[in-house]
């Protein structure tokens, strides 16, 4: 912050820069036109986050602000956790194209235990910053094509109790004030009377101050708008009423809410601060909201994130030391990690090899045993066959013996018979 201040002063009296007067029309006064022209072609981005209890009128207010009917879903009161729903729309007015993202909380304030209710909101905002940071740090990046999703304005809807802020409100706003531009609004302001409203606003502002909540202040540094911004800062928080229905008042159709006792006109400044909100949010300070988001909230996020990861800027005095240390430390870390991973992989590899070997050995063993088995069977069969053959041979030999014996016997008996016959004849 301090360095920022001296930078501005320094820029005013740059060494070696001399103011020069021109002897004629050069033509660079068209530069703002050139810049605006480029922006028209590129289009603009604006992201609004609406935080408020279910049914407090967030969607209706957005519809009223932008004169259109965004697709709205009625949420239930039974959400177990706070969620965020983001919807993006492409709007156009004359030649200006706006990519508007409206982020609504779903189920905010409905849980029994609201201690962690703020967390999803903080996480969402941080996610958008992180996403931008990642893009910014890429080697090949395209920032001018990047769809900026960072939250530029946060409308915090305060319940029109008429008394004071709820503790949920204070806790949530305190968590968000260093991350986003907070614009508190009193919702459904037609339920509060004028005198009550005045007291309510004072109470709210004093509670915010005493709790150290930094809400968005409309900027006072540009004379063109300083006066109106100062006035408006005094009207915070804006008491708003939203309506997309039209009622006939006098001879005109105006946006209003019709009650039996009267008609609350949205765009009537005596009835509510809707017009002031639209003025401030859109017509006068939209660009400043975007700039604050980029130069303050995002830079803070970036600085914290990088410091968290161990980066430090070099001090011009002691240049090499801290850097070298950081470098060496990180390098060591990486080398160790590298080594560890390498070892792990090697071990894994060895393990796998062992397993495979075992598998193969097992398979080999199995094959061997099967082979043995088959061999045995084969041998058995062979033995059986041999036995059979032997028996057969035996059979055969005994048969041939018997045959030979029988033949001999027959031959003997023949010769014996012949001799007998011869003997008889004699």
């Amino acid at each position: 912050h301090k360095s920022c201040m001296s930078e501005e002063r320094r820029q005013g009296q740059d060494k070696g820069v001399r103011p020069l007067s021109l002897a004629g029309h050069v033509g660079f006064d068209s530069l703002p036109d050139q810049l605006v022209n480029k922006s028209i072609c590129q289009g603009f981005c604006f992201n609004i986050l609406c935080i408020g209890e279910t049914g407090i009128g967030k969607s209706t207010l957005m519809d009223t602000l932008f004169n259109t009917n965004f697709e709205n879903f009625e949420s239930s009161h039974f959400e177990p956790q706070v969620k965020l729903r983001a919807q993006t729309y492409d709007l156009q007015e004359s030649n200006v194209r706006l990519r508007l993202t409206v982020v609504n909380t779903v189920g905010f304030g409905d849980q029994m235990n609201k201690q962690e209710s703020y967390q999803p909101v903080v996480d969402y905002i941080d996610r958008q910053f992180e996403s931008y940071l990642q893009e910014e740090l890429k080697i090949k990046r395209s920032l001018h094509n990047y769809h900026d999703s960072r939250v530029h304005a946060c409308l915090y809807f305060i319940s029109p109790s008429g008394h004071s802020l709820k503790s949920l409100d204070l806790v949530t706003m305190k968590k968000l004030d260093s991350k986003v531009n907070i614009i508190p609004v009193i919702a459904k302001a037609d339920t509060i009377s004028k005198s009550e409203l005045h007291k309510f606003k004072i109470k709210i502002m004093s509670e915010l101050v005493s709790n150290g909540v930094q809400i968005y202040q409309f900027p006072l540094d540009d004379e063109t708008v300083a006066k109106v911004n100062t006035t408006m800062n005094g009207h915070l928080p804006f008491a708003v009423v939203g309506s997309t229905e039209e009622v006939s008042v006098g001879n005109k159709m105006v946006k209003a809410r019709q009650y039996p006792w009267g008609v609350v006109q949205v765009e009537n400044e005596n009835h509510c601060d809707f017009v002031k909100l639209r003025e401030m949010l859109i017509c006068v300070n939209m660009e400043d909201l975007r700039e604050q988001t980029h130069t303050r909230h995002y830079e803070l996020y970036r600085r914290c994130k990088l410091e968290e990861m161990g980066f430090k800027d070099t001090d011009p005095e002691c240049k090499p030391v801290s850097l070298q240390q950081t470098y060496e430390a990180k390098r060591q870390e990486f080398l160790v990690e590298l080594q560890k991973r390498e070892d792990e992989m090697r071990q894994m590899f060895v393990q796998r090899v062992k397993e495979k070997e075992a598998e193969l050995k097992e398979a080999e063993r199995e094959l061997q045993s099967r082979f043995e088995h088959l061999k045995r069977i084969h041998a058995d069969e062979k033995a059986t066959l041999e036995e059979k053959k032997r028996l057969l041979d035996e059979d055969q030999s005994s048969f041939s013996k018997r045959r030979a014996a029988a033949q001999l016997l027959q031959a003997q008996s023949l010769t014996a018979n012949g001799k007998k016959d011869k003997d008889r004849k004699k």
Partner: protein
Amino acid sequence: MLSPPTTCYLLLLQAHRSQRGFFEFPNHGSPQAKGDKTNGSDFGYVGIDAILEQMRRKAMKQGFEFNIMVVGQSGLGKSTLMNTLFKSKVSRKSVQPNPEERIPKTIEIKSISHDIEEKGVRMKLTVIDTPGFGDQINNENCWQPIMKFINDQYEAYLQEEINIDRKKRIPDSRVHCCIYFIPPTGHCLRPLDVEFMRRLSKVVNIVPVIAKADTLTLEERDYFKQTIREELRANGIDVYPQKEFDEDAEDRMINDKIREMIPFAVVGSDQEYQVNGKRILGRKTKWGTIEVENIAHCEFAYLRDLLIRTHMQNIKDITGSIHYETYRVRRLNESNGHFTPHPSDHPLWRNLCNCYPMQMFWFFFFKLPTK
């Protein structure tokens, strides 16, 4: 409703075509006609277009920066041309108390800044002179000091950009535009011209001009320009406005017209003469007065319109989003190489970067003092 004085900024601001110059603004886009209702403007005015006025206010408050470099042999009228362009003594010679014209032994880079203001628009103009270019006997590698200077500015910007604690606005000393002075020989480009433009057109926007064009007749001038254009094409030299950076058909149309006219044949002067009852800038000779801003005499007015009135923002954009980014990519890839020679080949590289996102990896090694 709000009282009148505070509603002045609610007036619709339309992007108007430049009636003052010969070229239209680039990136014209297609602004829809007023009253054309697309989704969003169903009933009544919201005020989204008031953002144009807000941007304008912011730009006026911040002011602009523009850094222009002039390169060419001595005696080609570089200083005079700068003074003529910006209608004041912006050149180094006008600032130096010592008017001695000495040709330096080596190429020097001398930069001088001025705060100028016109109709509420403030600009910090830096003119970078390169005395000694092309004046040596041996001009080999004369582009090196200039290349180094340009890259040094990119480096300075990059260093600021990667600081943890950054400035709100990074001071922009990057060379947005380099005017290269071609001597009016009437024939063709010299090897020095080709070499210089070939190398530098890759890192900076080059706008070639034919210097002291009052020595060429119209026919000679046209022939010379045609020859130069052909030689540029033959050598693959892309001067501003580069064809590959045309955003859309409308842009291409506007820029094609410009590409058919470059290099502009210019004459500079900071002396005023009386011609037909008017005071105009010119060069008086025995055979007539050359009116600098008369397009029948020379093309100074086209150059001024291109550089200042219509394309200045575009020139800065191309420097920032293309030339600077190219430098950045090269530089960051170099520093990744410190850790391992082939990051993509190493099998563990990707696994390793689970500790930190891969794209932030170069950040570790970047802040080392470079050799």
